[in-house]
Structures are given as structure tokens and as C-alpha cells.
């Protein structure tokens, strides 16, 4: 009895999952291609780490359907993007527009890079300055020459 119930449950859930599949409005590949190129650049709001193109949530299905309709109506990509931004905000876009509130987001990494480079240069300059320049006198040079000569002779002397 339990097994029959289990099989029935499996069949039922299978049917349910089929029923959830959205019927594609446009079978022509051009529309689908545009749909994918637009929706890959958008975030699914229900499951925020998925793109609108890849998400299987009901809302994503609805929104893809909406985009299909708008493509059929001859709307441009920008018009469709605006439609989405007007409703869900800049957050739907994976590439946020450059405007005052997103300046930090866009320029921040480069500012950090510049700060890093500036820090590196000051550090290197300071380190170079720390190594004092020693001026060698003639006596010193003669001593060095003698030491080097000795060292060379020692080397030759070894069989």
C-alpha cells in the first residue's frame, strides 16, 4: 500500500513539475537569442545569485515571457532594460549604470590600486634613503684590492 502511495506521489509531483514549465511564446530562434542576451545581464530577484536567463523561479518565467512579448512588439533592448529598471531598480542589472551613487562602486577599486601604488613608492623611496652612502677612501680601495688578490692566489694555490 505504501509503495503504491509512493509511486502515486512520484507521478503526481512529476505532473506538477511539468505543469510549471512555461510554454514558450516564441519558437523562432532570433527572439530566443535576444531574450537570452538580455536576460543573462539581469539578476533574478527571487534567487539573487542566478541570472534571469538561468533561473527556474515562477517570477523569472513570467519576466522572460514579458520580455518575449516586448521583443515581439518591436521594443529595443534599451526599452526593455528600462522597463525592468523602472519596476525593480538598478539592482536587476548585473552592470549597474555609472551615476553619482555608483561612482564609488565603479571607481573604488582603481582608487584603492592608486593608494597601493603610492604606498609602495613611498616605502621604496624611504628604504633607499635608509641605506647610507659610504664613500671609500684610497686606503680602503687599496686594502680591498689586496684582499681580492690574496683570495685569487689562495684559489690558484689549491691543487
Amino acid at each position, binding site marked *: 500500500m505504501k509503495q503504491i502511495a509512493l509511486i502515486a506521489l512520484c507521478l503526481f509531483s512529476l505532473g506538477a513539475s511539468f505543469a510549471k514549465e512555461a510554454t514558450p511564446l516564441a519558437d523562432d530562434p532570433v527572439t530566443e537569442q535576444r531574450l537570452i542576451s538580455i536576460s543573462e545581464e539581469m539578476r533574478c530577484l527571487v534567487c539573487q545569485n542566478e541570472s534571469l536567463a538561468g533561473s527556474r523561479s515562477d517570477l523569472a518565467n513570467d519576466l522572460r515571457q514579458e520580455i518575449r512579448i516586448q521583443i515581439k512588439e518591436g521594443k529595443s533592448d534599451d526599452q526593455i532594460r528600462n522597463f525592468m529598471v523602472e519596476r*525593480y531598480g538598478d539592482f536587476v542589472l548585473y552592470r549597474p549604470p555609472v551615476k553619482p551613487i555608483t561612482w564609488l562602486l565603479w571607481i573604488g577599486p582603481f582608487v584603492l590600486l592608486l593608494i597601493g601604488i603610492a604606498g609602495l613608492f613611498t616605502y621604496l623611496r624611504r628604504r633607499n634613503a635608509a641605506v647610507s652612502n659610504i664613500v671609500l677612501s684610497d686606503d680602503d680601495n687599496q686594502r680591498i684590492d689586496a684582499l681580492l688578490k690574496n683570495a685569487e692566489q689562495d684559489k690558484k694555490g689549491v691543487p
Partner: protein
Amino acid sequence: MKMKFLIPLVLFVLLVIFLAIGLNRDPHELPSPLINKPAPAFEIAQLSESNKTFSPASMKGKVWVLNVWASWCVACREEHPVLVELAKSQLAPVIGLDYRDQRQDALAMLARQGNPYLLSAFDANGRVGIDYGVYGVPETYVIDKAGIIRFKHIGPITMDLLNQKMYPLISELQKL
């Protein structure tokens, strides 16, 4: 010069502060671009009387609350008593938007749990929901007399939210 060794510590504390703020934020709560914009127009059938329609234009001159709900949404059930409380206060009419639902299921839920709504509009395919930027039911909007959205809350509303935010806002909007 002596304080130099403190620099990494200060940087670390700053990082911890940023992360703490980030962790305590709900990533599902997004600022709605619809705030201070006119409530999108629609005209769809009502839930209980399918031969009648509802349009936000009919609410002009009133401060009202639009609540997006569905019988399949668990958080809506949790929120339901709060809505009943809001309706009881009679501060503002509550209109429901039954989102992607089955008519019988929705009516059964209202019969079981009480009906806080003046009426519910029946958004079977979720098209109106898209215009309102709905992405997680329940969502609640406060709309002023001129039909401008003044407040949006995503997720179930609580008694605290009612008392601290929505009641003061509604009474203020009533005065305008």
C-alpha cells in the same frame, strides 16, 4: 611614528565594521524605485465578485493600503492577523492583490482566516505584480490621496511596523 603599528589594527576594525553592517542587512530588502511615483494603473477582475473589476483610480482621494498576497504563500498566513488588526483600526482601507493564485484556494483562505480586505483584485497571471515590482509575496504599499506610492514593505508586516511606521505615516498622509 610610534603609532604606526596601529594602522593595520585600525584598518581591520574598519573592515569588521563594514562586514558587520553588511551581514545585518537583509539582501532581499531592496529600495523600490516606485517610492514617490504614481501607483501603476490597472483594471482587473475582483476576487469574490469576478464580474466586477477594480482599478486604483477608484481610490483617488483616499489614503489606502495595497497588500499583495496569495493563498500559497506561507508568510502571508503569518501576516494575516496583523492585516486584520490594520483593517480593524479603520485608519485606511486595505485592498488585496491576490497574486498568481487559484480563486477557490484564495476564497477558502479568507473564509478560514478572516477577510481584512475591502476587496481583493485577482491577478491570476501576475502581470499586475510585475508592474508593481513584486518579487516576494507578501508586499505592502501605502498609497496617498493623489495615488502616489509613499511606502513599500517587502515581507510580512508586523505589529511593530504598523505601530512605528505605518500608522504614523497614514495619519500624516490623511492630513494632506
